[in-house]
């Protein structure tokens, strides 16, 4: 039998039982790799369940710095008999299956092309611990230790992580280290170690951090000065508002009075959550909510009101697998059309498309500026993979000289100045010719600037009108504002200074990791060089249309069934749909470079 070999290029998958404390042990493993200076990415593949069902955690270690999911498991750590059959089947030929050999494996579970490494995890625990909960928790540390020995992870690094993990409960440090060392010792006594597939210290992560996108978005909202959040729990967005609450409650607390410079209200549903955002934004606060697809469906009516009445709002859609309730704990990019055109009538919304946690932080802060500048909802489109998984990413940065752009808001002085030159305030007057009118915040002036916000057809002075021409004028001005949005939203990122191919690739969001790796695979292994563009916002900047025009074929890579991003391109731009070729993945798992490479190479081979 051949053994897999290689340094710093492997996938380790943990098969656990939900609710057994494995998450923190698995995380220690992943952070050990990171602290040895080796790029890694971690994916939590979890059930919609609190306790008992199978759950997996997958760590990809990549010397080359590839941070997308990779197909094939090199080392599988099996701590869950329920899923053992499929787990054994998932190991690459020549790979390793680490399991609990307290009891013998049934012969049906034996493959002759993989290596079996038995660690008597339960046996060791039964011998060392009396308390059932301890037996379960320390079992996790035993496999961490065994893996450390097998993969040549520096034990001092693991010990350091254990010390950090239990910094607030120092009594737990020593027992956890001991349990970990039991695993190390068993491997040392019984196997030749390390394996041929292993890790080795590098200096490749620089000042990077490992953080999930929801935490980064929550921090972005704190830094952007959001003071009101209305929200309703839904996977996978819940932890975003929880992160916002954690940091806002910490850094906006007056220690003397116990009062907080934030108001977070758990709403009765997503409709109310968005209603709260609109009420607060209308009243001059920065407000936001976060949800997932089902929540956006419910918010449609309010999104239409916000668009038409021109009320700033920030909404994060952490997309999950649809349609309907779908796969709540799996990832997709399948809410694009829903979000872009949410609500009845001619309605469209600004979308921001972050691809890393760092960008989540930055675009979240930008979203508030853009929403207030454009006086319209801005929807930050992340997904479960970005939101809930830890990603290696550049450290978060804030420029202390940055001022919030509160947009066009008249002060009492402005209103008096208008009167002085014989002008009247019109809430929906296009004063500057950019389609963006001036607004007033309630209570600005005793006798000037009040207006009636409404979702009914209105004229420039916010008065109800059934004059069709007037209504069309408003709709046209909103289109002018849409054109302004194209200029002030983030520009796409191009990966070449000048085009080198007649074939291009477009991607966005978490597809970026796999797409960039696929470009390397195509170039290095197939000799195919492609031009690449990453979209960061909707509506599309003119350079998007130019990129498509400059290529005979453009692959559009995305994670949904209906090629929704491609539809947006066709719908909004003057492009030939035949040029746009779909590359899709919608199985709920993050798309892989290999899948992209296969599909693109396949299409190019048939031309």
């Amino acid at each position, binding site marked *: 039998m051949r053994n897999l070999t290689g340094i710093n290029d492997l996938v380790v998958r943990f098969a656990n039982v939900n609710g057994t404390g494995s998450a923190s042990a698995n995380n220690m493993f992943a952070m050990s790799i990171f*602290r040895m200076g080796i790029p890694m990415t971690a994916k939590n593949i979890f059930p919609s369940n609190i306790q008992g069902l199978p759950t997996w955690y997958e760590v990809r270690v990549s010397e080359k710095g590839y941070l997308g999911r990779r197909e094939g498991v090199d080392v599988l750590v099996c701590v869950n008999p329920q899923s053992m059959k499929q787990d054994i089947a998932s190991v690459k030929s020549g790979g390793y299956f680490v399991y609990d050999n307290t009891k013998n494996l049934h012969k049906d579970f034996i493959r002759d092309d993989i290596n079996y490494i038995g660690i008597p995890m339960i046996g060791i625990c039964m011998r060392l611990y009396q308390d059932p909960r301890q037996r379960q928790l320390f079992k996790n540390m035993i496999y961490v230790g065994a893996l450390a020995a097998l993969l040549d992870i520096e034990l001092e690094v693991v010990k350091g992580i254990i010390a950090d993990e239990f910094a607030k409960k120092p009594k737990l440090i020593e027992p956890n280290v001991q349990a970990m060392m039991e695993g190390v010792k068993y491997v040392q006594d019984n196997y030749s170690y390390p394996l041929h597939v292993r890790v080795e210290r590098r200096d490749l992560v620089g000042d990077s*951090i*490992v*953080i999930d996108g929801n935490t980064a978005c929550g*921090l972005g909202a*704190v*830094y*952007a*000065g959001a*003071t*009101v959040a*209305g929200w309703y729990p839904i996977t996978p967005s819940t932890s975003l508002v929880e992160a916002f609450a954690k940091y806002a409650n910490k850094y*906006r607390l*007056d220690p003397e009075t*116990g*009062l*907080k*410079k*934030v*108001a*977070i*209200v758990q*709403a*009765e549903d997503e*409709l*109310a*959550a968005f*209603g*709260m*955002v*609109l*009420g*607060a934004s*209308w*009243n*001059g*606060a920065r*407000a936001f909510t976060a949800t997932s697809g089902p929540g956006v469906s419910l918010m449609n*009516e*309010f999104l239409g*009101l916000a668009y038409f009445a021109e009320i700033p709002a920030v909404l994060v859609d952490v997309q999950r697998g649809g349609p309907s309730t779908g796969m709540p704990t799996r990832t997709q990019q399948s809410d694009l059309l829903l979000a872009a055109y949410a609500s009845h009538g001619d309605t469209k919304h600004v979308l921001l498309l972050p691809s890393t946690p760092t960008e989540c932080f930055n675009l979240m802060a930008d979203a508030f500026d853009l929403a207030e500048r454009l006086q319209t909802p801005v929807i930050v489109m992340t997904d479960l993979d970005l939101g809930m998984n830890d990603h290696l990413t550049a*450290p978060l*940065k*804030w420029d*202390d000289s940055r*001022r*919030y752009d509160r947009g066009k808001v008249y002060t009492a002085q402005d209103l008096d100045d208008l009167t002085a030159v014989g002008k009247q305030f019109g809430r929906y007057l296009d004063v500057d010719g950019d389609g963006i009118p001036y607004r007033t*915040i*309630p*209570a*600005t002036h*005793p*006798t000037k600037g*009040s*207006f*009636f*916000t*409404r*979702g009914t057809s209105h004229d420039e002075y916010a008065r*109800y009108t059934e004059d069709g021409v007037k209504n069309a004028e408003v709709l046209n001005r909103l289109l002018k504002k849409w054109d302004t949005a194209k200029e002030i939203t983030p520009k796409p990122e191009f990966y070449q200074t000048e085009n080198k191919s007649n074939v291009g690739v477009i991607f966005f969001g978490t597809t970026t990791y796999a797409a960039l790796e696929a470009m390397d695979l195509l170039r290095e292994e197939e000799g195919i060089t492609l031009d690449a563009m990453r979209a960061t916002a909707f509506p599309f900047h003119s350079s998007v249309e130019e990129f498509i025009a400059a290529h005979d074929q453009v692959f559009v890579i995305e994670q949904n069934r209906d090629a929704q991003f491609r539809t947006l391109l066709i719908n909004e731009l003057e492009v030939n749909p035949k040029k746009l070729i779909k590359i899709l993945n919608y199985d709920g798992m993050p798309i892989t470079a290999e899948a992209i490479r296969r599909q693109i190479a396949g299409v190019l081979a048939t031309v």
Partner: protein
Amino acid sequence: MPKNTIGYAKADYEGVISTLCAGCGHDSISGAIVQACYEMAIEPHRVAKLSGIGCSSKTPNYFLNNSHGFNSVHGRMPSVATGANMANRDLIYLGVSGDGDTASIGMGQFVHAIRRNLNMLYIVMNNGCYGLTKGQDSATADQGSVSKSGSVNPFEGIDLPGMALELGATFVARSFSGDKTQLVPLIKAALSHKGFALIDVMSPCVTFNNNAGSTKSYDYVRDHIEALAEIGFVPEKEEITVSYETGTTVDVELHDGSVVHLQKLADGWDPRDRQAAMRRLQAAKTEGEILTGLLYIDPNSKDLHEVIKSDSRPLNSLKEEDLCPGSAILDLINEDFR
């Protein structure tokens, strides 16, 4: 033109001319709001007026022209009011809704605004029917009430004050659009109350629900009305100079020092007794009475801002230096993720 103590004339509290039907109860309620705000010398721009959708929800356009208004979507005014209130705790929030807007499509939001004790006045202009869509029964229509077309409502009507009491509302009142002497002081008391104040106002629909057999017609309401007490409102700045016979009056002092003065009380009536209010409402229903007046008040209630411990300043007034932790803190946060 007479002016109030802050120099505003009554006209300064009016809105544009109503487009509702002549004789609509809602216009009387708008008039009562104007009068209450004028007499209380509220600065009009310190009021935010919000509504949902329907005939009633149009009315914020017909009063307080110098206030910002927000005509939101059907049944969703409470959430918009919640957000607005969170952004600036210093304004007065006046929500206007109807029986369709509140008791059907907006029931969820109504209930939760009560539950959170949001500091606002919530007026339901209750006519038992959907006026804008030409007279369908609403969820507050009484069982057995006859519509204009002659059909009899087979469903139990929802009693909003009864439900609000059950939910823990801290100010619950019912009134009648045709009884300004009761409605105006109730509005004043509600505006001074810190917390959620509900006034369910019987407001007959002259066009679709004012026929014989309807239990929301002018004639029916007048014939069946039963007031718990005569109500007076004494603003904080004025002293109570008239003395009343004890035993038949109750004075309730509100958080801002104003006093709600109730006289000719129904026997054994204390507006601070929630259970008594619930019993009295049930009894009135059995008797076929429409019970009006201040049903219940908790003068010491804690509003949502107090519960969640938000800053005493309006959140919408806070700037970068109040809100942004800055780059040095961010560097420390980064360290937690290495």
